[in-house]
């Protein structure tokens, strides 16, 4: 499925970002726009979204203190169902509080492992198609 880059208001000109809508669990009416970040090791979203999607962070697989954009944040890793491009899959997600970004971030473990992604910066779109045989995920505590 192809997604046009998102146009954001910028100081001099619009900023373009490769984002895709991600449904968290069964929160169908409000998919979260997430930035494709191939340099990120894991999926990271605002903890606020976990509560809205009914995802409990009480018994996380792992907890970590992270430095994000100069801000200390606490990430709790849980496995959740995500849906991208009509493909529902189980993925580890680090829900972080506080979270300084406007988007969630989709990283290698939990997204790029499950999708084949083509960027066309020349034409301002990104295409995602599910991998037919995704390799088993790694231990989320290492992501």
């Amino acid at each position, binding site marked *: 499925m192809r997604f046009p880059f998102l146009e*954001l208001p910028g*100081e001099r000109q619009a900023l373009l970002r490769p984002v895709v809508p991600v449904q968290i669990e069964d929160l169908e*009416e409000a998919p979260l726009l997430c930035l494709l970040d191939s340099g*990120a090791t894991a999926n990271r979203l605002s903890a*606020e979204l976990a509560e809205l999607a009914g995802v409990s962070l009480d018994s996380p697989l792992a907890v970590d203190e992270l430095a*994000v954009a100069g801000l200390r944040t606490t990430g709790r890793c849980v496995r959740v169902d995500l849906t991208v491009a009509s493909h529902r899959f189980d993925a580890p997600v680090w829900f972080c509080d506080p979270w300084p970004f406007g*988007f969630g971030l989709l990283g290698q473990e939990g997204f790029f492992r499950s999708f084949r992604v083509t960027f066309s910066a020349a034409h301002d779109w990104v295409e995602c198609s599910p991998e037919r045989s995704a390799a088993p995920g790694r231990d989320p505590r290492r992501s």
Partner: protein
Amino acid sequence: MTLDRGAVERGLDGVLPEPVREHYVIVGGRRFPPKQVVSLLTGLDRADFTTHQARRVLKRLGFVAARKQRRTVGTPPAGGPALPHGGRQAAALAPYVGRWVALGEPDEVLVAANTAREVVAWLARHEQRASGIFRVPSSAAEAEGLAPR
């Protein structure tokens, strides 16, 4: 009862607009269904007046009233920047920097609020489905992929 422009603006401060089906008025840079505005400010039941009557009242107070237009897809303005939506999406998002928004069409903001919770609650209450929700970055840094390394 007397309505004036200031009273309308004050009365809608902090109020989330309901979905716009066809007609709307612009108050404080946001689009409201005319009947929502008049009903809220007067306490009148919406069945007691028409959209056109509400529009007329609000236009007399100096508010812009308009009708939602079907857009022509894929025709960016001549000479405009080569952007996926011809710059219309960035323009639609510009008033909402720093706020959570729900997009309908690419250049249609269904609702804007201070928290994701308010946006999701609004969507549920009005049985609307967004194409995506996010917080419009207030700086380039907030729009970067600065994931923890």
